[in-house]
C-alpha cells in the first residue's frame, strides 16, 4: 500500500533528535525522502545539551532503515545562507520539495521579563522566529518550482496561543510564528501551498525534561521529574503528564498529506486539552 506522502520530499529543521527526528521517521514511514538539518551545538543559556553529530547520524540510520533517502547536514536556522545551501543541496540530490517542517527551536533562560538578558532575548527571537522565516524562505522557492502545491508546517507551541510567566522571549517568538503562518497561508493559497502551525503542550524530549523546566512548572527550586509530571498534568485536561514526539509527528503527517488537502491557515493544538484549562 502506498504511503500517505509517497514520493514526496520533506525539509525538516532540528532533525537530529526529539520531535524533529520523530517527524523525519514518521514521514519516511509513509514514503517521503528527507532533507534534515540541525545546529549540532550547545545553545547558550539552555538548561540542556544541544544535539550532536551522533544524534543526526542516528536519524540518518533510522530513515535509511526504512529504505528512504535522506540528505543530512549541519546548519543553523539563524544563518540564512547556510540553511539555503543545505536545502539547495538536498533538493539537488532528491529532486523536489513538497513539505517543510520548521521544527528547530530552543528553550533558554527563565526569568521575569524585565530581568531577561538582552542577548537571551535576541537569540530566542533569532532562532525560534527568524529561524522559522529563514526555513520557509530557503525551502519555498523549491516548492513553488514544482508547481504541485505543497504543505508547510510551522511548529509553534502552547506558548504560541497563551501566555506563560518567566519565558517572555519564548512566548513572543512562538506567537510570532502564528503571525507568519497566517500571512503565508494567505500569500500561498493561490498556489495550493498550505501553511498551518502546530501547538504542542509539553512533549517528552530533552528540551523539557530538565531541572530548569521542572522548576518553571512547579515554581520551586530542585523539583523532581515526578513533581514536574504532577504540575504538568494539572494544566492538561486529559489524564497525562505530557505527550510523545510521535503525537506531534502524526499531526505533521496528517497536515502534510492529501487527507488535509483543504486545511490551511489553521493553528492546530496537540495539547491534551491544555488550552481548555
Amino acid at each position, binding site marked *: 500500500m502506498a504511503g500517505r506522502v509517497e514520493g514526496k520530499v520533506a525539509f525538516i529543521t532540528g532533525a537530529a533528535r526529539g520531535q524533529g527526528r520523530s517527524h523525519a521517521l514518521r514521514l519516511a514511514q509513509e514514503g517521503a525522502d528527507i532533507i534534515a538539518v540541525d545546529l549540532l551545538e550547545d545553545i547558550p543559556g539552555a538548561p540542556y545539551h544541544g544535539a550532536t553529530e551522533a544524534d543526526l547520524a542516528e536519524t540518518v540510520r533510522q530513515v535509511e532503515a526504512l529504505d528512504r533517502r535522506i540528505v543530512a547536514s549541519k546548519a543553523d536556522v539563524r544563518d540564512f545562507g547556510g540553511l539555503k545551501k543545505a536545502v539547495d543541496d538536498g533538493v539537488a540530490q532528491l529532486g523536489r520539495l513538497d513539505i517543510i517542517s520548521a521544527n528547530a527551536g530552543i528553550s533558554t533562560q527563565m526569568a521575569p521579563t524585565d530581568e531577561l538578558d538582552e542577548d537571551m532575548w535576541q537569540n530566542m527571537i533569532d532562532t525560534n522566529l527568524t529561524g522559522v522565516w529563514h526555513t520557509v524562505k530557503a525551502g519555498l522557492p523549491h516548492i513553488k518550482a514544482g508547481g504541485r502545491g505543497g504543505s508547510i508546517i510551522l511548529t509553534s507551541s502552547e506558548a504560541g496561543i497563551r501566555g506563560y510567566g518567566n519565558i517572555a522571549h519564548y512566548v513572543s517568538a512562538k506567537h510570532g510564528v502564528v503571525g507568519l503562518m*497566517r500571512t503565508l*497561508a*494567505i500569500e500561498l*493559497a*493561490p498556489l*495550493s501551498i*498550505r501553511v498551518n502551525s502546530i501547538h504542542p*503542550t509539553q512533549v517528552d524530549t530533552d528540551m523539557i525534561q530538565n531541572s530548569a523546566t521542572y522548576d518553571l512548572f512547579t515554581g520551586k527550586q530542585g523539583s523532581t521529574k515526578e513533581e514536574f509530571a504532577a504540575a504538568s498534568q494539572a494544566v492538561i*485536561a*486529559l*489524564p*497525562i503528564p505530557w*505527550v510523545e514526539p510521535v*503525537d506531534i509527528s*502524526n*499531526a505533521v*503527517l*496528517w497536515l502534510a498529506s492529501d*487527507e*488535509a*488537502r*483543504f*486545511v*490551511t*491557515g*489553521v493553528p*492546530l*493544538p*496537540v*495539547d*491534551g*486539552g491544555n*488550552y*481548555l*484549562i
Partner: protein
Amino acid sequence: MGVLEGKVAFVTGAARGQGRSHAVRLAQEGADIIAIDIAAQIDTVPYPMSTPDDLAETARQVEALDRRIFTRQADVRDKDALQAAFDAGVAELGPVDIVAANAGIAPMSLTPQYQEWTDVIAVNLTGVYHTVEVAAPSMIERGTGGAIVLTSSTAGLTGIGGNTPGGIGYTAAKHGVVGLMRAYANYLAPYSIRVNTVHPTGVNTPMVVNEVMQQFLQADPAMGQAMANALPVELVEPVDISNAIVWLVSDAARYVTGVTLPVDAGFVNKR
C-alpha cells in the same frame, strides 16, 4: 488493517451528504456504524431533505465494505427517540467508541419566517447536545475512552450566514456547538474521551448545492464574496470533512481534544 478496526461509530444525519461520507469513511477504516437520520422533511427547510431510500443507500455502501450497520429513522430534536435508536444500535453492534454529531439543516429562504430560527436552533444546537447526551454515559461507564466530533461550520467561528432568522440562527447554533465542545471536552477529559469540532467551508452536498441556497447567496452579493475560499476551490468534498474526522477519532490524534479544526480552504484565516 484500518485505523478504526473493531470500533463502533454513532453518526447522525447519515442518510446522505457529509453524514453518509463519514459512515463510509469510518467503515473503510474498520468501524461498524450506527446510522441515524430524520429521513423526512422539516417545513422551514427550503430544499428536499433526505429520504428512507437515502438511508438505505448508506447501509448498502457500508455493507459493501463488509462492515455492519444499524440504521434507524430518528429526529435529533427528540431526545427519547434518539436514545432509543442509540440503545437499539448498541444492542446490535456493541458499545460505541466514536460519535459524529453531523445532523444539521440550513433553513435559509427568500421568504424568511421566525420558525426558521426555532428549527435551526433545535436541530443544529439542541440536536448536537442530545447526540452527546445519549452516547456519553455509556462511554463513561465502559471506561475505555473515546472520541466525539461535533460538526460546526465556518459560521461557528465567523459572523457569516445572512440576516434572516434561519441565517442568524444557523450562525448562532454553530457558534453554540463550539461552546458545547469546550464544555464536554473539559467534562469528559478525565475519562479519556476527546471532543473536538470540525468547521467546514461550503461542502458539495444537497444542503449547499440546491437552487434556493444559490438564490439566497446571489441575493446578497457581499455575502457571495465573503464566502470565497483562499485556496482555489469553490466547494470542498464530503470526504475532506470525513478525513478530518477519521484523523480526529483515531489514535493518531489520541491527545487532541478541545480543538476547533477548520477544513475550510483557508476561509477563516483569510477574513
